[in-house]
């Protein structure tokens, strides 16, 4: 358990671990009755053949993922899905000359970590802002500190680090003289939207990673349709990362909420059944 309703686990999946790159994700079906839930890859270890995932309880299936005990099995674990981050294909020398800022919100810290770690392994130190509602919802601080250039923390209630939103902290850093060539923002849609509005003011290229609804995750259903620069894309195969300044966030947020009422009804029943159960999988 990383924080309330957020759990982290290592999953044995040698094929996925071998092929995973920063920016990609997996789809997990916890059991026969579970949904296919897209989850970000938080870390991967080719030697051990494991992939680390972070899950937040939002529906019935994610509740059962978080209720798994260490040693238990997940029915299906498929990936890596989506395209790796653009920088993976960039010239390393050019990359080393870039000033990169990652802005992670809440659970978005998990997918940001392997990107910052990969860059650190190539000798690129990227700055990171991690934001959360409150101190107890901050995740992976130690791991991030080990790979980031400067790590900045913002909490909405001021219980740790900067008191305010990640966008306010970013603007403060820029006002203090920091400058960046590219910003990568991963977190709730609303946060990514406002990061993009902020960076647009400074003309800084901004990449976002969208967590659209998905069923198969291989380009078959189109549930993850998103409008980028006036064109429709499938997040699962053409994303999940897009040019944030081109994304229609209002549409993306509306589409993301499509099944909310049906899901919460199903989730409530499961939550009640699990009452009192504490997640112990992969306690770190």
């Amino acid at each position, binding site marked *: 358990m990383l924080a309330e309703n957020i759990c982290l686990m290592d999953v044995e999946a040698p*094929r*996925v671990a071998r*092929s995973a790159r920063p920016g*990609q994700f997996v789809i997990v*079906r916890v059991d026969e*009755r*579970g*949904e*296919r839930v897209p989850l970000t890859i938080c870390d991967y270890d080719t030697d051990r053949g494991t992939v680390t995932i972070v899950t937040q309880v939002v*529906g*019935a*299936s994610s509740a059962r993922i978080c209720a798994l005990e260490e040693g238990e099995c997940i*029915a*299906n*674990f*498929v*990936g*890596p*899905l989506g395209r790796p981050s653009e920088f993976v294909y960039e010239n390393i020398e050019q990359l080393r000359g870039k000033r990169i800022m990652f802005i992670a919100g809440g659970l978005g810290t998990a997918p940001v970590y392997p990107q910052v770690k990969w860059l650190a392994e190539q000798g690129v130190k990227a700055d990171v802002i991690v934001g959360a509602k409150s101190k107890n919802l901050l995740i992976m601080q130690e791991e991030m500190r080990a790979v980031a250039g400067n790590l900045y923390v913002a909490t909405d209630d001021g219980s740790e680090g900067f008191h305010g939103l990640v966008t306010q902290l970013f603007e403060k850093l820029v006002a203090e003289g920091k400058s960046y060539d590219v910003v990568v923002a991963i977190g709730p849609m609303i946060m990514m939207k406002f990061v993009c509005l902020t960076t647009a003011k400074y003309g800084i290229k901004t990449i976002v990673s969208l967590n659209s609804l998905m*069923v*198969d995750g*291989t*380009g*078959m*259903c*189109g*549930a993850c*349709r998103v*409008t980028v620069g006036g064109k*429709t894309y499938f997040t699962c*195969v053409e994303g999940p990362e897009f040019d944030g300044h081109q994304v229609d966030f209002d*549409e993306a947020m*509306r*589409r993301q*909420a*499509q*099944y909310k009422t*049906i*899901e919460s009804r*199903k989730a409530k029943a*499961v939550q009640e059944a699990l009452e009192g159960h504490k997640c112990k999988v992969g306690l770190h």
Partner: protein
Amino acid sequence: MANKIPRTPVREQEPAVRATNFEEVCYGYNEQEARLEASRCLNCGKPRCVEACPVSLQIPRFISLINAGDLAGAAAAVAEDSSLPSVCGRVCPQENQCEGSCILGIKGEPVAIGKLERFIGDWGRNTGSLKVKCKPANGHKVAIVGSGPASLACAADLAKAGYGVKIFEALHKAGGVLEYGIPEFRLPKAGVVAPEIENVKKLGVEIETDVVVGRTVTIDSLMNEEGYEAVFIGSGAGLPRFMNIPGENLNGVVSANEFLTRANLMHAYDDSYDTPIYTGDRVAVVGGGNVAMDAVRTAKRLGAEATIIYRRGEAELPARREEVHHAKEEGIDFRMLTNPVEVIGDDKGWVKALRCVRMELGEPDESGRRSPVEVPGSEFDIECDVVIMALGTSPNPLIATTTDGLETNRRGCIVADENGATSRPGIFAGGDTVTGAATVILAMGAGRKAAAAIDAYIKSK
């Protein structure tokens, strides 16, 4: 005279009852009915039905064996040419193939070849009488991408010839379109699909699910690192088409693939499964093919008022005749010569209507069908909560874009010759990934041809 006997009717669930459940619509023939129907076959010297069958099933032969009461013999005769008779008997467009060319159909009703194939396929499976022999293992390994009809047919033939065959499936369940696409009420999963796949596994074929070729592994890694000497790509046409009209990304507009995958593969219609599905009160399905019929009938079963919107006329509907007939019996509303131009949303971004224009049929186009032409000023709105786009699919580009030197055409289909050989030696392809969306039986035929070509390729190395 044999041909004086009328075509034997098949028992079906009452339309009003079946429109509220997901159980199979058609009960099929029992032995008595099957033998009666089999007695109608003229056993033609030059059987046109065999010529019209993509896998050249020995139709008069298996039918005369049913007629003679030798069911085991009939089942064995079918098994020589088809590994999925219970599936094909249910989903083939027989009216355009075997039954469409039956001599009896000229003056009366053709022999119910599909229903007889289904009967004998089900009989063979239920009695477990089929024992297919495989040649001894020859030590060669072949990888197969996807687990739909093309792949299953290819895998079965290669396994029988002694090859070590492994199928890689992206989803969590094998079967491809048989699992995620065709609904339970037309093709039962546990009763028909699963046992047919089990039969392929009994031949020694391995199936590894949750492997997305192009992401988890690549064709080249399978060949270079995992020791497969040849690969067959039978990954189908999974990419849904949309109309590119305004409002298509509103909440409530889904592809038929998404709607059917939620219902079939994910069991969303069952409350004990987590995956949600939404129909609202009124569903409009755009398209006139089998997938459109599957989607509209699924929506009906989920309690919605369901309508088909099709831009041509009823005679041009590409769906199987039986599906159209069943859909009508179940109370599906058909709006022909109607074409959507815009999806209208409410202030919260949900679908509230589909704006359409009326069409009239003009000159025949290159497909031979009269092409629809818009009637000027004929715009009108059809109120609905959900719009399902069933406009056809094209192959997923994932494999082509991750395999160097694999040629595709401008429609995104993999280029392969009549034996399935692609532009890369050792890589074969067949089914919808080559032709674009077609039928189960054509895919099976392509899978079988490719199996023979792979056998020849490996032997010649």
